[in-house]
C-alpha cells in the first residue's frame, strides 16, 4: 500500500541532498583569485625556466621561479619570451617599461607598453616568441605597430602574457609579471 508519509520523507531528504550538493558546488566552484597573476581572476599561464642561445652565449630565464624568489634576470636587448602554451586563439605577450597596472580586469598603463606580440601577427608561435617577431607600439594603439627596436640597455623591464576565452570577452589565462634587466 502506498505510504504517503514515507514517500514525503524520501522526497524531502532528496531535495535536501540536492540543495546541499548545489550549495557545496556553489562554494567550491567559485573562481578563486590569484593575486600573483597580472589578471587575478584568470587561470595561470606557467612560465617555466628556460635557456636560449644568443650572440653572447646561453641566456637563462628563471620564469615563475624568479618571480617567487625575487630574482631579476639579466637579458640582452632582444630577448626571447617563452611560456607554456594554452592553445587559445587570442593571446598577447607584451613588454612594459614600468610595472603592469591592472584595474577591474583592464591594464591601465598601456602607454608603457614598448613591445608587443599577439596571435594575429604572422610570425611567432604561442609559447615561444623571439623579440624580432614582435612589434613596437605607439600610444598603445594596436594599429600603429612598427618593426621592433631593441630595448634600451641598463633599464629594467616587465613582461607578461594573457589570453582570452573563445568569445574574446573575458581574459581567461594570465601569467605572472616577469621582471628583467637589459644589460
Amino acid at each position: 500500500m502506498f505510504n504517503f508519509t514515507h514517500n514525503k520523507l524520501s522526497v524531502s531528504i532528496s531535495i535536501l541532498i540536492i540543495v546541499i550538493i548545489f550549495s557545496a558546488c556553489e562554494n567550491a566552484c567559485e573562481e578563486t583569485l590569484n593575486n600573483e597573476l597580472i589578471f587575478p581572476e584568470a587561470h595561470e599561464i606557467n612560465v617555466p625556466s628556460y635557456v636560449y642561445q644568443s650572440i653572447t652565449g646561453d641566456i637563462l630565464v628563471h620564469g615563475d621561479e624568479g618571480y617567487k624568489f625575487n630574482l631579476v634576470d639579466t637579458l640582452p636587448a632582444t630577448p626571447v619570451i617563452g611560456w607554456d602554451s594554452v592553445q587559445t586563439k587570442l593571446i598577447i605577450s607584451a613588454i612594459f617599461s614600468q610595472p603592469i597596472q591592472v584595474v577591474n580586469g583592464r591594464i591601465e598603463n598601456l602607454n608603457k607598453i614598448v613591445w608587443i606580440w599577439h596571435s594575429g601577427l604572422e610570425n611567432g608561435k604561442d609559447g615561444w616568441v623571439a623579440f624580432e617577431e614582435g612589434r613596437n607600439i605607439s600610444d598603445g594603439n594596436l594599429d600603429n605597430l612598427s618593426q621592433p627596436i631593441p630595448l634600451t640597455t641598463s633599464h629594467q623591464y616587465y613582461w607578461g602574457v594573457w589570453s582570452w576565452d573563445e568569445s574574446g570577452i573575458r581574459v581567461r589565462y594570465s601569467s605572472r609579471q616577469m621582471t628583467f634587466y637589459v644589460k
Partner: protein
Amino acid sequence: MVAHIMLGLSFNTFFSMLRTNIINPAVFKYPLSSVIIKILIINASFIHVCAYSGHNLIENACSITQRDSLSRDSVTFIEVNGIIKNNFHENVDSVKVLAEINSYSMHTYSDEEGLFTFKFPVGSNILTESIHLSFLKYDYKPFDTNIVVTKEDFPETLNIILIPRYKILLKGRLFAGNTPIEDVDVKIRHLDEFKQLKTMKCYTDEENYWNCLYLGMFKTEIVTDNPEDSIYLSFSRSGFKPQLYKLRFADYSGDILKFRMKYADTVPDLPGSNLSFKLSYPIGKSSGWFLGLSFYGKLNNNMLNRFRPGMEITMSTYKRSVSLSSLPGASETKFDTVYTNFFVGPSVFFFLTKPHVRRFSTYLGSTFSLALSGGAFVLQPFIGTRYFIDMRKSVCMDFRYISYGLNARNYTFSYIGNAIGYNEKISVDRILINIGVQINF
C-alpha cells in the same frame, strides 16, 4: 401386502407418490411394474400413467400428453431401457428422450451414466408396436430412430451413439489504438441465434486485486452442425464508428480475436474546459524555445459556444549571436547570449470550425500578455488546429506571432583586458510553430 395397502389409497395419491420417488424400489419389494399392471387391470380408467426409472439418481420426467381410450381390460405395459454415449465412448447425461407411440408421446432424460428407461401401455390385442424415439441435446446432433417392440417386452438395452455438434468459445478483444475499450456493445449473430454482450471492465478480483487482465474482452460459446456457417459480429459504442465483422465458423482458431475500433468523426459530450501545454522547438539562426501553458473555459451561452476565454503563461527564449572584431589579423570571435522572457495575461480564441469535430478543429485567437520583466504589453495572436487522439486528449499545432523588446548586451574587444560591455535595445519578432497537447475536461 403393500399392494393391499395401496388399494385403499386413491389412484391420484399413489401416482403422485410415484412421481416424487416416495416409493423407493429398495423398500418396495414387489416388482413395481407388475404391481402397477395389476392395479391398472383392476381400475385403469382415467389414470395418469407415469414411467418410473428404477434408479435413485435419475431425474425422470414423464407425461402422457393424451389420455387414451384403451379399455380397462386390454392394457399392458412394456419397458424400454437404453444407454446413450457419444462417439468418444463417454456417457451423455441430460439427453431428452422423446418417445411417440401412435397417439402417445412421453419423454424422459438420461441420467449421469447415460441410462434412460420408460414404459408405455399397449393394448393386449396388439402384438407389436412401433415407437419413434428422438434424442435431443443442444451440444449433440439430434438423433431419431424407430424401434418395434412386442407385447411381451423389450428385453434388449438400446445403445444410442450421439454425434457432438461443433462448438467454439469465441473470444475477442476490442481496442482503440492500443488501449482496450470497455463497455462496447457486442452483438453476435449465428443463423437465427442472437447474443448481446458487453466488453469487460476492470474489476476487483477474489484476491482483492484490481484486475484489468480481461479489460475490453468478450467471450461466448457458439455451437453449430455446419462448420461452414458464418458468424456475424457487430460492435458499437458512443464515440466510435460502428463496425461489422464476419468470420467462418471453421476459420476460428481459438485465439483471442483483436478488433480495432475507429473513432467517430465527432467527440460526444465535448467538455468545455481545456488545459494545454505548447512547445516550440528553436528553428533557425536567431531563435529559441517557446513554452506555453494555458487554460480555457467555456461560456454558459449557446450563442457563444465557440468562444473560449482563458489565461496563458508563456516563456520565450531568444538566442542572439554577435560577432566581435578581435586582434588585427586574427579571426573574428562570436558570443552567444540566451535571453529568457516570461509573459502572462488573458487569452481568448474562437473556433472557426465546430469544436467537437475530431479532426482539425481550427481556431483563431490572441493572448494579451504582460512581460514580467519590463512590464511591456505584448500581443500574441495565433491560429491553430487540434486533433483528438482519444475522447479527452488532443494534440494541437498553432502558428503564433510574438514581438517584444529586450535589453541586449553588446561588447567591444579590448586587447588590454576584458571586453567593454554596453546595453542595446533590440526588438525580437518571431513567428513560432507550436506543437502542444491539450487535455479537455
